[in-house]
């Protein structure tokens, strides 16, 4: 636990220092993107990693926040209201779609998430009050009241606060009843059910929290880019990016999504520098190859594999101190 808090603390210190010390807006934007993706990856990790229901449609929850911000701002309301409004919409969507589908296993669930996301995307595309395919361009109005800033510093600080909240939430999950139940369900749902764990109830709770986190990231995204349309926040490719971040770092680990987001941002930046712009597929090649290698040779992801290696070493060093090890490693 101390290690986790220390890691989180260092990220907070470094990010705050960077937010105030670095004046290069491009670097700050990268830092902001990293934090935002880490939040999205963690949100995905709750349902796909901890609960074991792999989602390929997570962008719909991200879109709830982004569209809530766009709608509220366009109609003259404060974008701060988008945090509760987007989260509420996302949670309702998660419960309505999750109630019937969360009991599905493996690919049945994964394909169902693609189907639900495609239905939601079609709905947005054909709804005139959501501006259909055109989307929203948000007016520029800087200031804390409007959650919009000319400098990236404040964006980094807000994203950092969200990231810290999400990481603390995940640390709490790991040692809570919900966390143990999800792990039991994932390991053997039959055995878990036979001791009275209500699969639907606990998974719905995880799904709702996961959706609310993704929605909050969506609000920040909309307030930063000031443009929201279906391809940028809700398309299958967005859901796939979120899943990429979650898988690479390692499923069901506290730090996996952050590692995945770091690699994602570094790759996007590196590819843009070396090969001139993204969208040419090079970053996808590296990402795809990375996932293939991880799936075939390191199925627990980068962080998962490190944790395993660490446990083995500790186990070899002090076999008789096992309760202490279990506590530290968890």
């Amino acid at each position, binding site marked *: 636990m101390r290690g986790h808090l220390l890691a989180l603390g260092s990220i907070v210190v470094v990010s705050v220092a960077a937010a105030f010390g670095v004046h290069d807006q491009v670097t700050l934007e990268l830092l902001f993107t990293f934090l935002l993706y880490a939040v999205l990856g963690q949100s995905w990790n709750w349902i796909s990693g901890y609960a074991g229901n792999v989602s390929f449609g997570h962008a719909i929850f991200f879109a709830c926040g982004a569209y809530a911000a766009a709608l509220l701002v366009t109609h003259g309301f404060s974008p701060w209201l988008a945090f509760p409004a987007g989260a509420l919409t996302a949670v309702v969507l998660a419960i309505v779609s999750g109630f019937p*589908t969360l009991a599905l296993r493996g690919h049945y669930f994964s*394909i169902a998430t693609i189907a639900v996301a495609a239905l939601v995307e079609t709905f947005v595309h054909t709804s005139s009050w959501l501006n259909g395919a055109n989307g929203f361009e948000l007016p520029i109005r800087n200031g804390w009241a409007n959650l919009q800033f000319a400098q990236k510093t404040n964006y980094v600080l807000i994203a950092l606060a969200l990231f810290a909240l999400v990481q603390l939430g995940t640390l709490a999950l790991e040692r809570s009843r919900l966390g143990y139940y999800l792990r039991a369900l994932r390991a053997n749902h039959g055995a878990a059910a036979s001791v009275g764990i209500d699969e639907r109830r606990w998974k719905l709770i995880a799904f709702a929290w996961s959706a609310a986190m993704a929605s909050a990231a969506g609000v920040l995204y909309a307030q930063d880019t000031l443009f929201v349309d279906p391809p940028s926040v809700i398309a299958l490719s967005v859901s*796939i990016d979120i899943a990429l971040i979650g898988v690479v770092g390692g499923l069901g680990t506290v730090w996996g999504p952050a590692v995945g987001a770091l690699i994602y941002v570094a790759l996007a930046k590196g590819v843009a520098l070396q090969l001139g712009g993204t969208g040419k597929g090079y970053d996808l090649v590296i990402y*795809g190859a990375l996932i293939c290698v991880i799936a075939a040779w390191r199925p627990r992801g980068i962080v998962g594999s490190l944790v395993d290696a660490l446990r083995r070493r500790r186990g070899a060093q002090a076999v008789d101190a096992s309760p202490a090890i279990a506590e530290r490693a968890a």
Partner: protein
Amino acid sequence: MADAGVEALSILAQLIVAGVLTGLVFALVSVGLTLVYGVMDVVNFAHGEFLMLAMYVAVGLALIGIGPIVGLPLVVIALFLFGIVVYRVFVRRLLAGPPEATVFGTFGLLVLMQGLAQAIFTSDYRSAPNPPFQGTLHLGAFAIPQATLVEGIGAIVLTALLFAFVEFTETGRAMRAVAEDRVAATLMGIDVQRINALAFGIGAACVGAAGSLLLLSNPAYPTVGVQYALTAFVVVALGGFGSIQGALVGAVLIGLLEVLGGFYLSPELKLVPVYLAYLIVVLLRPQGLLGRR
């Protein structure tokens, strides 16, 4: 009034023909997916990218003068070999890992293949130069694009061939045995790894054929496979994962739903009934319309 009725009926009949023909192509794409699922319990999320690869191979052949129809067997062989290699090098390892490894592994393959296609071919549309069958066939009141007709007929012939192979040959019997019970099949002396590799190769060969046929009326581009793969997931769920006959029935149903939905609702909504069908089937009848429990 009567004329309007006759016209509405003739439109409906024409839509049904178009729907069935579309569905037959879906069937050829879907039987590859369902065969792999049946034999080794793997949903290949990169199935659509195999189709994309097939279309690029067919475009390449067309550029050196071998048209999509003559080139079809070559594309089938190329994809068959590709499938075998992918199984031997990659999928075999995924099967040894935890159950979710096959989902992520084939998902990674999807990302990798799309990225490669984008890096090598860019996202431009690539068509076969001067493809055959470009006219429209008039049969009384019916007007059918020749390409659609050839695609549909080619697809049903090849699907029937695959069905006959699985049903009547010794290797096909071995495949069904592995699908039924892997351990028992091993005890009967069946080389499961060989059967798996073969099934994966044949699954890829199916989209090899489908890709060649689709090139008659569609261009190739990096994400061309996505929509076909999504449709194939729905078809396979509808027919019951692992069932070839089920995939054929499901594919024709989906083809009809898509064409009728696109006409009577709106083109933007044509996939809504398709996805709703998936959700309804997996929730109410997870073994599929024809599947056994």
